């Protein structure tokens, strides 16, 4: 509320100040304006969000309802897993490192590493292949995938309708007398939209705190900008494109080709963000690497000629990126400054029903 107040004053000028004071004076007896924890706020150094907030404004009730749905195993076919089974806050809402591929109902194993969830309001497409084009639609795929929750979305909504408490919570959050699919999706989106990670040491550095990074980390940042930035663009640390970085020795997963239906996209996957990368091991869609050092070694020594291989990692018969061992350690030191402890332990995401 504080920021809203300030924005208005700035926008409409001092002439409105008097009126604003009157309104605020009437609205609450307290002199301390309350900070709304459940309001989406774009970090100052981020681009404009792409999410359609005009259709689904985040608010406390919708967010908390989404949080409850996200943690509810009764929304999987056999009641065994919830979204939070494979999207764990301490791992930046990726799966834990012991699960290179997540386990769905009946311990069915997936074929791609569960991606972390944060800064989703700024993405245009979702999942490793980008087939889903709006955040609202992402849960449908997780519900219906037979190696994930293996339940038809209509059945999810039917279970919510029969639940002793959910219908009342939907009424309170969305003013609807009947729970329908879009409101279930809106609640889940509200929860996911609040997963904003923008307060790492790196963020403090780019926002003016020159002490936030050590000299080693700064050297790493410089090397990062030289060798990695063209795909892992700041501030999201992804350019949102699809590329083949040669991580499959033999191509078994067609990746982006599945949705675009052209062979030129074979084995291409969405460039992942590197924020919180320290806590999201293993790496790549096929979970091939356990350490960041292995990832960098792949780029300098492991990439080989392959159909659709990205020219930014392989050209003229050899890997493009060349780094000494020392340089790799510096880059890794920098990558660890992208960890956002406040996000990883933010209590608003904890599984509680209050």
């Amino acid at each position: 509320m504080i920021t809203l107040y300030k924005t208005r004053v700035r926008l409409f000028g001092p002439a409105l100040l008097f009126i604003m004071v009157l309104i605020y004076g009437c609205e609450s007896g307290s002199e301390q304006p309350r900070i709304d924890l459940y309001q989406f706020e774009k970090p100052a150094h981020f681009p404009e969000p792409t999410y359609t907030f005009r259709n689904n404004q985040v608010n406390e009730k919708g967010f908390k309802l989404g949080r409850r749905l996200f943690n509810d195993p009764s929304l999987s076919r056999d009641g065994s897993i919830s979204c939070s089974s494979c999207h764990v806050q301490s791992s930046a809402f990726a799966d834990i490192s012991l699960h290179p591929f997540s386990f769905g109902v009946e311990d069915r194993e997936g074929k791609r590493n569960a991606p972390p969830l944060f800064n989703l309001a700024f993405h245009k497409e979702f999942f490793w292949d980008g087939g889903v084009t709006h955040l609202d639609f992402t849960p449908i795929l997780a519900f219906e995938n037979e190696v994930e929750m293996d339940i038809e979305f209509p059945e999810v909504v039917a279970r919510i309708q029969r639940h002793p408490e959910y219908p009342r919570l939907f009424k309170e959050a969305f003013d609807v007398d009947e729970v329908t699919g879009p409101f279930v999706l809106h609640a889940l989106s509200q929860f996911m939209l609040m997963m904003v990670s923008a307060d790492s040491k790196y963020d403090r550095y780019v926002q003016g705190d020159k002490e936030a990074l050590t000299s080693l980390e700064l050297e790493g940042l410089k090397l990062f900008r030289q060798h990695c930035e063209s795909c892992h663009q700041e501030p999201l640390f992804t350019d949102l494109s699809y590329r083949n970085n040669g991580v499959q020795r033999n191509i078994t997963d067609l990746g982006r080709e599945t949705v675009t239906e052209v062979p030129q996209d074979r084995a291409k996957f969405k460039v992942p963000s590197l924020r919180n990368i320290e806590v999201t091991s293993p790496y790549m869609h096929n979970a091939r690497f356990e350490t960041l050092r292995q990832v960098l070694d792949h780029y300098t020594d492991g990439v080989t000629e392959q159909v659709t291989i990205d020219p930014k990692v392989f050209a003229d018969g050899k890997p493009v990126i060349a780094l000494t061992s020392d340089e790799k350690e510096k880059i890794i030191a920098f990558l660890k400054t992208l960890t956002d402890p406040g996000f990883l332990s933010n209590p608003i995401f904890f599984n509680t029903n209050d």
Partner: protein
Amino acid sequence: MLLLFVAVLFSCQESENPTINEKGEMIVKFDNYVGNQTMVLDELGSTNYRYTTAKGQSFNVTRFGYYISHVKLSGPNGEVFVDEMHASADESQIKGYYRVVQGESDTYNIHLKDVPAGQYNKITFTLGVREDGIQEGAVGGILDRAAGGWFWNWNSGFIHYLFEGHSPSSPREQGELTNRVRYHIGGWKNIPSENEDPQRFFDNNVEVTLDFDATVRVSESLRPSPHIHMDLLKVIGDADFETENNIHSPAAGKAFAQRIAGAFIVDHTHQ
């Protein structure tokens, strides 16, 4: 002061020509055919093959329908009616999206309201759901996946045109079912080719424009009704059920989408 305001309002209303604001309605009726036979649905698993394709393959229909949106009417004297479009999570706020579902007779009639009075002799509509029905996010009513909306989870978008049935020519199994034929025609965007890059995705929304057999008049008391026939055989075209029996992606649906516009005709018009 208030008096002045009221006076201004009233004077405006009185000064306008009442005929300019006159509105009426039109009911557009859709009848689905297979060749010259009326479409009849059979039970799942039925071996009663009522219809035959151009290739001579017999088949039946177990489920059939299509989405219609962006309806427009135009007339010989410059009359234009553009049906309002709105995608919303709240079912009661959805405007301009329709779905004709075989076997559900209340879906055969599209009821156009607030049509300006005048003459009309042409209708245009989109067969399918365009980007504006997808990229607004979760939507309700006939577009709600949970309420039976025909929505792809893996490649976001709607199935514009859906035909399912059985043919003895198809070897396709679907669970317990045999001889399955399923055509789900969807896809709503083109990423055009650039330099050496090919086109990605396929926009299979189809713009259909039909002339009425006669000019009709809409007024407060006149509610005309054009009857449109849709012929599934024209969409199947020369497809071979032996190999083309399971269409579930924009690229695979492209050839069928190209035949959709030609499957619609205005049969007659009731004034």
